[in-house]
């Protein structure tokens, strides 16, 4: 067992979960909405790859992005905009309901059998081998993680709309008072989460080619709990938390003894619970827990 190998694979999977968490944290930042249905965007993207499997790869990828972005946009318009101003508990349950309804749609449309959605199956080959095995999809995940995390950071730090988004996340009401176009900011947050979902769909299907109706939910649960463990009220702590959860998932898979491998999920979530016990304000949050109730 090569330690360096384990670490590289862990970083690659962590990057993927971090991308999911960016979308979650952006939406949470502006709306205080925990969007369970983000996972369904990933499912939609993955199913679109299956549907367009006979088209040229470029077209297939373009359609995947289009589907994820349009769906993210519509989701906000139809399901979440009317709930603006409802309590976080209400919107959380609503997003859970949306996720379950969409899962039922996938089941109706595609059946319970997994469908192959690995448009980028060519990435599932070794780029480097020898003492260190490096697959192309690992490299792609690392690259996508760096580019998209960096891109989001730049967007937030250097552009006008990014500044507005940060302002809205910091204090939604005041931001609106000083004339920030909150609808544009919210739509952008959802569109960005759609972009991330498309990238995750493209890359995750390389390792898990069979798309079932819970494809996205399984990813989003781990990313979400990771984000909560990291501290979901700030973008970078949420992203780091989800990264840590992905990293831990991958490391557990190679570090657990053979007899314990079947309990990988249990160990992962137990680790996350322990992290919460030690740092209830977030693994990367402030040292002292806040006294005032916040979400």
């Amino acid at each position, binding site marked *: 067992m090569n330690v360096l190998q384990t670490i590289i694979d862990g970083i690659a999977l962590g990057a993927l979960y971090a991308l999911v968490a960016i979308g979650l944290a952006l939406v949470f930042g502006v709306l205080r909405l925990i969007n369970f249905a983000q996972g369904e965007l990933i499912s939609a993207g993955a199913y679109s790859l299956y549907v367009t499997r006979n088209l040229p790869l470029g077209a297939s990828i373009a359609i995947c992005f289009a589907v994820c972005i349009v769906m993210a946009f519509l989701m906000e318009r139809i399901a979440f905009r009317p709930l603006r101003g409802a309590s976080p508990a209400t919107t959380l349950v609503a997003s859970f309901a949306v996720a379950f309804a969409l899962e039922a749609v996938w089941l109706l449309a595609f059946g319970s059998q997994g469908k192959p959605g690995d448009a980028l199956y060519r990435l599932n080959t070794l780029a480097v081998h020898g003492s260190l095995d490096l697959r192309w999809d690992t490299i792609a995940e690392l690259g996508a993680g760096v580019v998209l995390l960096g891109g989001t950071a730049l967007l937030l730090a250097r552009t006008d709309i990014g500044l507005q988004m940060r302002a809205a996340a910091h204090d939604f009401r005041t931001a609106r008072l000083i004339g920030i176009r909150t609808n544009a900011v919210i739509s952008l947050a959802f569109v960005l989460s759609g972009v991330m979902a498309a990238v995750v769909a493209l890359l995750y299907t390389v390792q898990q080619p069979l798309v079932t109706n819970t494809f996205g939910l399984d990813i989003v649960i781990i990313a979400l709990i990771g984000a909560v463990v990291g501290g979901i009220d700030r973008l970078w702590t949420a992203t780091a938390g989800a990264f840590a959860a992905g990293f831990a998932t991958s490391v557990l898979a190679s570090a657990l003894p053979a007899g314990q491998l079947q*309990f990988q999920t249990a160990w992962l979530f137990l680790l996350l619970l322990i992290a919460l016990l030690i740092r209830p304000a977030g693994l990367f949050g402030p040292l002292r827990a806040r006294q005032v109730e916040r979400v």
Partner: protein
Amino acid sequence: MSGAGMRHLRALQTLAAPLALLVIVAAIGAGTTASTQQDFITALISATIVYGLYVFIGNSGVISFGQISFTAVGAFSAGVLTIPTQPKRLTMPGLWSFLAQHSISTFPSLVLAAALGALFAALVAFPLMRLSGIAAGIATFSVLEITYNVLDQWTKIGPGPNALALVPTTIGVWQALLGAVFAAVVAFVYQRSRRGRLLRAAREDPAAARAVGVRITRERLIAFAISGGLAGLGGGLLVHQLGTITVDQVYLELTFLTLAMLVIGGSGSLWGATVGALAISLLDSWLAAAENTVHVFSLFTVTLPTGASDLILGVIMAAMLLFRPQGLTGGAEFSLAFLSRAGAWIRSRTRGAPPTEPEAPPLDHVRQTEPH
């Protein structure tokens, strides 16, 4: 009537109406054919589990996705321990000898299911309840995942990935009714107790409650443990109804279904939990049957594709949150007071006296805190 007498009467209605509805459903169920009766038993057991959810979610305002873990623990502990030792050795050879060599009857197994559910809930509540509301809700998911994974894989404590079979089917419609009535009474007593009132105060305004000395973490922990106990009892009833159960039956689908029941009925009141659980459970049973084909009054037949029932429930739930976020019952307890309110309203029209205030604890009760 005097003020205190009126209050007691109201309190009695709060409990009596849900109990009456449970009895009516049980009585209708008892009069139907054996196969239809199962749907009514399922409805009563669902009500038991939903009362469990209500004790925590309704009183604290914190959403939990983890309560079905306690149902799972209840179902599997009650199931494994009531299977006769003879077949148990054959179907579950990996079982710990203590579990393999003992077999108990239904009633103690239900007590055990509730106790284990409460104990497990209290244990996990320690890390969870220190979190703020929404974060706690999400984190409860990890409990569900751990429970599912362990029950699905650990053959020392259960059947592992196989179905748990040969559990004595001892729960009929009257036994299920008893279970549901017990859960309703526990939920009622808790919500009227000092503890319950403190938690409800914290739900309405966490900052103010804390300022007057309410220890929110502790109150939530207590509610979570009681909730876990009722969910565990529901699991015990469920396994004795079905006789055969897989871990998938007490996982995400049931989590969604029971949450939908609570939200659609109205999570702010015992009456809402009752109405939601019974109505949605019966609807769900009907839809599930329709996925096979049902005859409607022998006039026409309906066949729904697989997955349609979840879609329909998801849409109803989302629509309910959009248009009536306090649920079918509006979050209010059942009350005959609407008669006297109507009288007061008429008098106020004629004499100009102020109308009495209706009381309605909403779902929308988590006070929206401003981000800093």
